[in-house]
């Protein structure tokens, strides 16, 4: 018995270390990908000088960030100011513990996995608020306030759409949700929920066109205006890791996780399917970012409270009624 508990702990620790390494590498890769996608959309090549296809560019940038001085504004709330970047990065890592990369590749297949991810992703609001508030900068504070309002508004449709999926499977366990999509992905059964999930997830990760907390043309850099060096780097990494998490969750909830389309697995390992779909969703989020202008703050709130929440509620209701009578 004791041995089993011990092995479980080892599994968890090894998993956490791997998750940390993967999260960092993945974020570096995503930054590169973002710049490449943006570059090609804008008819320019993007980074290409450092390493093959500029792959090492973000590593060079990260090294530069590490080497920079960490400036703390004299009027800042110093403790909160230092904690905030750590606070935003750690909860994101927790998400990796429950993500179902492949049937046998889940660090910890919890029966409340879905809930855990969303519970921890809410932490990032706290970090953003702490960072924005403690900077003692008006732009940062405005960004933080906007961020909180936005995250609260978008958490609700996000969870409501997830609920309609959970209702169909009757489980909050990721592996069971993915298993249920062996033949048909839930995006085909729940197209409205899938779309609303993607929109809310974009807003949840503060990506354009919902990047209001850091709206660069209004609030300079939003909540991280005063951050420099690797503290800024952590906010940056967290944004990209967050993007990966929401895309991975979308993949497992709506796009069949490790399954190929319509039950055709084509002898390709599950992890490849999973990654392909996740990176495709990330690409879509990037593509959206480099296409649209930013929504105004009150329009964003209106969109959430007056459109997304009623629609996702109706969707949930319809799902429940249909499930009841099938």
């Amino acid at each position: 018995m004791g041995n089993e508990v011990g092995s479980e702990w080892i599994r968890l620790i090894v998993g956490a270390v791997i998750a940390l390494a993967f999260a960092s590498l993945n974020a570096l890769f995503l930054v590169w990908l973002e710049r490449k996608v943006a570059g090609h959309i804008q008819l320019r090549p993007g980074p290409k000088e450092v390493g093959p296809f500029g792959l090492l560019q973000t590593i060079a940038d990260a090294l530069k960030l590490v080497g920079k001085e960490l400036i703390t504004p004299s009027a800042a709330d110093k403790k909160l100011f230092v904690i905030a970047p750590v606070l935003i990065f750690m909860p994101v890592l927790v998400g990796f513990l429950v993500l179902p990369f492949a049937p046998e590749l889940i660090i910890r297949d919890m029966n409340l996995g879905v809930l855990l991810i969303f519970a921890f992703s809410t932490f990032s609001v706290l970090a953003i608020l702490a960072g924005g508030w403690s900077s003692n900068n008006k732009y940062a504070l405005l960004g933080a306030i906007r961020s909180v309002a936005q995250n609260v508004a978008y958490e609700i449709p996000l969870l409501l759409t997830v609920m309609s999926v959970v209702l169909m499977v009757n489980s909050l366990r990721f592996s069971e949700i993915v298993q249920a999509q062996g033949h048909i992905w839930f995006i085909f059964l729940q197209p409205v929920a899938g779309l609303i999930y993607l929109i809310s997830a974009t807003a949840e990760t503060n990506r354009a066109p919902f990047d209001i907390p850091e709206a660069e043309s209004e609030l300079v850099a939003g909540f991280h205006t005063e951050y420099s060096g690797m503290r800024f780097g952590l906010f940056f990494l967290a944004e990209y890791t967050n993007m990966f998490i929401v895309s991975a969750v979308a993949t497992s909830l709506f796009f069949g996780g490790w399954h190929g389309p319509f039950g055709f697995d084509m002898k390709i390992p599950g992890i490849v399917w999973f990654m392909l779909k996740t990176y495709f969703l990330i690409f879509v989020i990037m593509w959206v970012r480099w296409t649209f202008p930013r929504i105004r703050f009150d329009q964003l709130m209106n969109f959430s409270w007056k459109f997304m929440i009623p629609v996702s509620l109706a969707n949930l209701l319809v799902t429940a009624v249909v499930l009841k009578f099938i």
Partner: protein
Amino acid sequence: MSYWKEVINGGWSLVEGMRVTFRRLYRPVVTVQYPRQKVELSPAYRGHIEFVKFKETGTHKCVACGQCQRMCPSNLIKVQGIKERAKGRKVGTQYFIDFTRCSLCGLCVEVCPTKTLKFSREYELEGVSRWDGVIDLMARLGETRP
């Protein structure tokens, strides 16, 4: 009803926008990768001024009249000359410009009575001190340049 119409039309407009950017995704890049590729200079390109080397004399025709010096809006031209013989023409011996202050208006080139000034085709001008912007036109004339 008009609300739903706007939602659908709005959604469609977003899709159309994404189509525009997607089409660009696989088009060739239009930027020029500067140190590796270079753009051809326009025939009218204005670099800093330099002397024309006339074939018949093998040198410039500057007579140090000082018209360019007076016409320059930024007073950045210094020209000096000597008269070798009592009845001979004056010949320019020193011609300096402070390119850091030049606005490339071309008035000096236009005003030159002997047409011995022209625009160079230099554009990669960099230096570590402001004195690197001071150009000795007489010395440049000695150098062989295309």
